[in-house]
């Protein structure tokens, strides 16, 4: 079921701007963020397309996997010529889902062996980013 059915997408851009403190409309779509992003091939939308979607208040944006693939590596942040912190926009999108109790990861789905092999730094960071 598309998640947008359970989360309001009204005023999505304004909510993301408030949560992130960023100005979405500073972006002029040069694509530098998408060019430098190490994880675009795993995303169903490019990072620059996520910002464009925000500018247009695209209600399908919350169905995209881009915000969950983004690892906050900040390659985009240091290179944006307009000073837009895209990682903060991605975090705001994640937070909109998480604050609606829509976790992206469930620790119950990890096996005991997986948990044993993973260092705590990975588990805690992942659950901080992908669960509410």
């Amino acid at each position: 079921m598309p998640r947008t059915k359970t989360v309001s997408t009204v005023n999505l851009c304004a909510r993301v701007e408030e949560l992130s403190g960023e100005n979405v409309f500073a972006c002029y779509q040069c694509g530098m963020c998408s060019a430098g992003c190490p994880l675009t091939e795993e995303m169903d939308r490019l990072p620059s397309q996520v910002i464009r979607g925000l500018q247009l208040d695209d209600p399908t944006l919350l169905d995209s996997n881009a915000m969950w693939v983004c690892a906050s590596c900040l390659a985009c942040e240091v290179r944006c010529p307009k000073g837009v912190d895209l990682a903060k926009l991605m975090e705001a999108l994640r937070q909109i889902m998480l604050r609606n109790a829509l976790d992206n990861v469930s620790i119950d789905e990890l096996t005991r062996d997986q948990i044993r092999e993973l260092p705590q730094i990975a588990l805690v960071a992942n659950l901080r980013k992908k669960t509410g």
Partner: protein
Amino acid sequence: MNGIPYFPGCSLKDTASEFENSAFFVMEKLGLPLIELERWNCCGTVYSLTADDLMHHIASVRNFIRTREMGADELVALCSMCYNTLARVARRVDSDGEARDKINAFMDREIDYDGGIKVRHLLDVLRDRIGWERIADAATRPLDGLNVACYYGCTLVRPKDVSVDDSENPTVMADAFDAVGASVVEFPFATECCGTYQVVDRPDLSLERSYRVLRSAARAGADVVATACPLCQHNLERALDKLGEHDGIENLAIAYFTEPLAAALGMESDKLPEGLRSVLESRVTVEGDA
């Protein structure tokens, strides 16, 4: 205080104990021992990026209060994720009085935090406090012949306002290895993401990223990939373990940057991890080995 307050974080007491041990050794040798912060707690692991999320900054602020209680005004981290989280929280509460007041009001059993703690990474302590010349002088077993790829990853160098060096072309780790006689190889993946915490639910993605880092380092002629982050270390080791037979990455050793430095400063080889030890034995030309 004869030393510098040190924040360990979770990994340094567990999966990354060799990072801590080698850093203790290096700093003892250099005359500025690491003094563990009393009653430290988790840094928060990742810096919260939403403007209203002050709750997750509390963990870092508590550590700043512990630092103040030691009578200190600086705190050094080894783990680059801890460094990043602590440094970003320090900047946030220093520059945003309203946020600081809210956090102080919430922590009613703590003394108020008044700001001003300087968060450092061990690499900038080595550069700015010790200096490369002193490190070179202390290198009793120089790493001549060892080719090191310095892997910075993300959190040491981004965002710019907490970066230990230039965000796009950092040299601080390379300068440390240069000081102890190693050859530093340039490789284009030095500041690329290893896949980080995605290893939990997207292990494929993390493996692919880490493999590309290793392959890039191997093609540049590295013997050792030096890291500063327990999560980078885990992901790179996992890639070596799972894909080690591909493309000549099998001969790489992956080590915390403090481990080869400790070797250069005289740490006994039986205290070094096996992979690094065998690379050192095969590559480094030693005069009068102990």
